[in-house]
């Protein structure tokens, strides 16, 4: 009996479809018999052991690692260029496949919280969780009672090892929260509006009453940045070594902390601003203003890259997820809207009982909102609209939430409130497998020094900040535009009076 192999491989063949419904184990042995009802052609070719483990074969997520779609060599006439493109595409595909296969090397699993039939996860309190988790996690749930020195803000370093808390009344403390080791504690005796870590746990910046100060990990004041006046919000771009501040004057300032230059200052012209966050995917700064507008800033352009009207009324907080896809904004109109940052379109919005004081998105896309005396964590709330939160945490005796941040690589949320700081466990919020070359919570001193030097060497230039990744891409502007820009640059470079390079850069259109 000779059966046509091609017939079996055609999935539209009705015989094939019928055969697919049968279990392979029965028909594996009789595939060579002259029967129309033989097993699936594909499986008949596989050796016995492979069919047995076919069910256990894991599906490789290659698309995650491909970084964009394939380039076809269709329109290319040059033979050499065509073979080059084909070779490169094959290499990229192989690399993505190998990266997907290497996922099996990941040792840690993500956290989760599942409720039984008649329970809801939102009802679980931290006390109940405390009984069900292991000792290691229990130590991560703590509460620091600091009632005197005002509402607190809690910030974590990039590797989630050290925590920094700043109280509005001037209380500044930094500690290694894994080991519960206090690095330093200061009473500044002046208003402390914001704190942020710089590239490491060795340096931090504070926005005090008048100016911004930079401190050492032992609490010694290193610098006073007099250019920054009455700052409300600070942020640090780790790959560019830029400290960004915005304050009552409504001027956004970019300071390079490695060289000490003030790289750029742009007037927002929208008055006092106290909402600012970075987009971790492309290092663009987002500011929320009192007229409900969100502006996106880059140091190389004096006008915002994008202006979005998000709320009716002032904004209270905003957050962007680490893939740079979703933006969450909240305003005094008690709405919390989720936007698609690539298309600037609103996706859905939630109505809160009170305007949100602070919003944060974890590494795994969990959204936490602090409003009034509550903190709510929403799961899968970015892509879809969800009915109820994942978890919630409440404070008693009028303690209101002032600042919330997820800890990187841990299932922990740090909540700063008016009576101190709480660290609560949110299972499934942190990325379980860290990459030691990027951020290592277990780095030794030697490793930290090496990483510091390497990141200084690889420091990105402020001109590289833009909405899209345009480095090493073809300049699609027409030839006249490029020629015009070159002419302007030449003129500026040969001008009599000294011209700052930023004037030249800002004349380019991005």
């Amino acid at each position, binding site marked *: 009996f000779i059966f046509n192999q091609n017939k079996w491989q055609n999935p539209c063949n009705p015989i094939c479809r019928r055969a697919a419904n049968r279990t392979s184990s029965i028909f594996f042995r009789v595939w060579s018999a002259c029967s129309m009802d033989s097993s699936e052609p594909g499986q008949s070719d596989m050796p016995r052991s492979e069919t047995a483990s076919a069910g256990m074969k894991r599906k490789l997520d290659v698309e995650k690692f491909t970084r964009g779609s394939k380039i076809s060599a269709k329109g290319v006439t040059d033979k050499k260029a065509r073979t080059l493109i084909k070779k490169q595409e094959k290499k990229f595909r192989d690399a993505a496949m190998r990266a997907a296969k290497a996922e099996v090397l*990941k040792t840690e699993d993500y*956290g989760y919280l*599942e409720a039984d039939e008649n329970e809801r996860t939102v009802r679980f309190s931290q006390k109940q969780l405390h009984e069900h988790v292991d000792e290691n996690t229990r130590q991560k749930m703590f509460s620091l009672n600091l009632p005197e020195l005002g509402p607190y803000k809690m910030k974590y370093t990039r590797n989630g090892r050290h925590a920094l808390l700043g109280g509005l009344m001037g209380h500044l403390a930094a500690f290694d929260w894994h080991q519960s080791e206090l690095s330093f504690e200061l009473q500044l005796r002046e208003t402390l509006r914001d704190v942020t870590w710089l590239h490491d746990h060795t340096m931090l910046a504070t926005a005090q009453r008048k100016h911004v100060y930079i401190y050492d990990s032992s609490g010694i004041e290193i610098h006073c940045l007099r250019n920054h006046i009455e700052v409300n919000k600070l942020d640090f771009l780790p790959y560019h070594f830029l400290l960004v501040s915005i304050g009552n004057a409504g001027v956004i300032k970019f300071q390079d902390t490695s060289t000490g230059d003030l790289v750029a200052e742009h007037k927002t012209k929208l008055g006092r601003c106290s909402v600012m966050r970075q987009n971790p995917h492309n290092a663009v700064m987002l500011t929320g203003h009192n007229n409900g507008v969100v502006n996106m800033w880059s140091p190389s352009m004096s006008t915002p890259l994008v202006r979005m009207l998000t709320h009716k009324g002032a904004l209270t907080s905003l957050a962007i997820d680490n893939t740079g896809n979703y933006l969450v904004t909240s305003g005094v109109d008690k709405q919390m809207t989720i936007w698609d940052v690539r298309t600037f379109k609103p996706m859905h919005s939630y109505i809160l009982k009170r305007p949100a004081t602070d919003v944060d998105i974890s590494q795994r896309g969990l959204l936490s909102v602090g409003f009034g005396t509550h903190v709510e964590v929403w799961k899968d709330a970015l892509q879809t609209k969800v009915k109820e939160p994942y978890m919630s945490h409440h404070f008693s005796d009028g303690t209101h939430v002032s600042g919330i941040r997820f800890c990187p*690589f841990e299932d922990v949320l740090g909540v700063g409130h008016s009576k101190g700081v709480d660290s609560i466990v949110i299972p499934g919020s942190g990325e379980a497998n860290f990459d*030691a070359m990027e951020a290592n919570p277990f780095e030794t001193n030697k490793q930290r020094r090496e990483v510091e030097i390497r990141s200084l060497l690889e420091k*990105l230039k402020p001109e590289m900040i833009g909405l899209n*990744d345009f480095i090493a891409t073809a300049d699609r502007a027409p030839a006249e535009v490029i020629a015009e820009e070159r002419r302007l640059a030449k003129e500026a470079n040969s001008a009599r009076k000294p011209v700052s390079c930023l004037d030249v850069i800002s004349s380019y259109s991005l």
Partner: protein
Amino acid sequence: MKVKTISRLESDYVATRSGDLNRMPRNADPALHPFERAREYTRALNATKLDKVFAKPFVRSLSGHSDGIYTMARSRTAVCDFVSGAGDGEIRYWDLSTGICKWAIPAHQGMVKGTGFAAGGDVIVSAGSDSTIKLWEAESSCNFAMGEVPEPLHTYVSKSPVLDMDCHWSEPMFATGGTSIDVWHHERSKPLQTMQWGLDTNGSIKFHPIEKHLLASTCDDRAIVLHDTRAGTPVRKVVLNMRSNCLSWNPMEAMNIVAANEDHNLYTFDIRKMDSAMNVHKDFVAAVMAVDFAPTGREFVAGSYDRTIRIFKYNAGHSREVYFNRRMQRIFSVQFSGDAKWVLSGSDEGNVRLWKANASDSVGTMLPREKRSKEYRDKLKERYAHMPEIRRIARHRSLPRAITKATRIKREIKDASKKREDNRRRHSKPGSVPFEKERKKKNCYNYGMIVRQNQECLSNCTTWGWLFCWRSSWNSDLVMLLWFTVLITYGLSI
């Protein structure tokens, strides 16, 4: 409820005992690695800059000769053995690793015109313009310190002044060029074969490293001639616009040969199809005097009358590296070392200079981690080589003003002629002025040789084929040969 949280054991990640390693887990998820291209570009830029910082190509100068060095040869079997011949007739044998001259022999009365190592590496052959060729023992037992001068193993006398000499790659034979090409054997005092095409002198001779019976030479009638020792005759001739000064066979691609020409260019020919040059290598501003291929066949070094040496990639139109030195004058000979890492230049102020083939390489062995890191940096530089900043830095070489000026003038001339051609194209019928590829431009004329005695050569190609490959002109030689073919087709004998 079912709950699980991330709970890492410190002991899993941090070394607890002295021999333990700190674990460095990796996660290739792109979300954890933002700004990939920007960081790669920055690393490529840093790598390019560091290259420039560490670019110290000049290693040492082998001095000792008191006259200009016009010929050099490296041993084909040992990397460190090297012989150079000067204009006062002295030959010196060097150890390249230390730079020490093992011995110096006043070999000839006139200039030393050709040196080489015979097959096996024990015997050094030197040919001088006093028409003698001498064999010397490389590891001579003579006491040079006492002033003793060894006797040559053998001396051969040629009928005419010798202009160049090359050793066979496997047999104890060598060939000399003068008015004709003589192929000698070590055991014979008279040449085995004499080959000549026309009456012009033969300037530079090179035996083929792979097809060992083939021999290429340059002629004063601006030609490159291929000779076959099996047939005992010249076989093919390519006439260029100007005279070629030196030749080098590609040791990896048996059919390619590069010729250093007087018109400041080098031409690579494929001997199977010699109607146009395969590649034109441009960058020099004076006559190219010497060329030598690397043993890898991927690069060659060329030295020119404009006091610079350039390293070219085998298929590139422009050089990848240029070395010059204030003390180095006109270069008459170059050699690539046997391990493809070093380049030697012999100039007419009497010094042989040793340079690194890759200027920013470190001398000595690299540890595996260092090697991997270097490979990564090299790949990054290659990937971002087109970016303007990186290109500007990688291209930058500081050269003497004369050379930059000459290059600029050449470019102006080229641009002017290009502009003229563009204008002509714009003001004529579209398609009537075609774009001419630089390599396809008629820069040479190909001739084949009909051999009356040896019928095998004839039988390999049709007579009509020979006719077509000839250039039509009223050169008397050609007319005679044309007559021969016509007669042969009609089966008549002369």
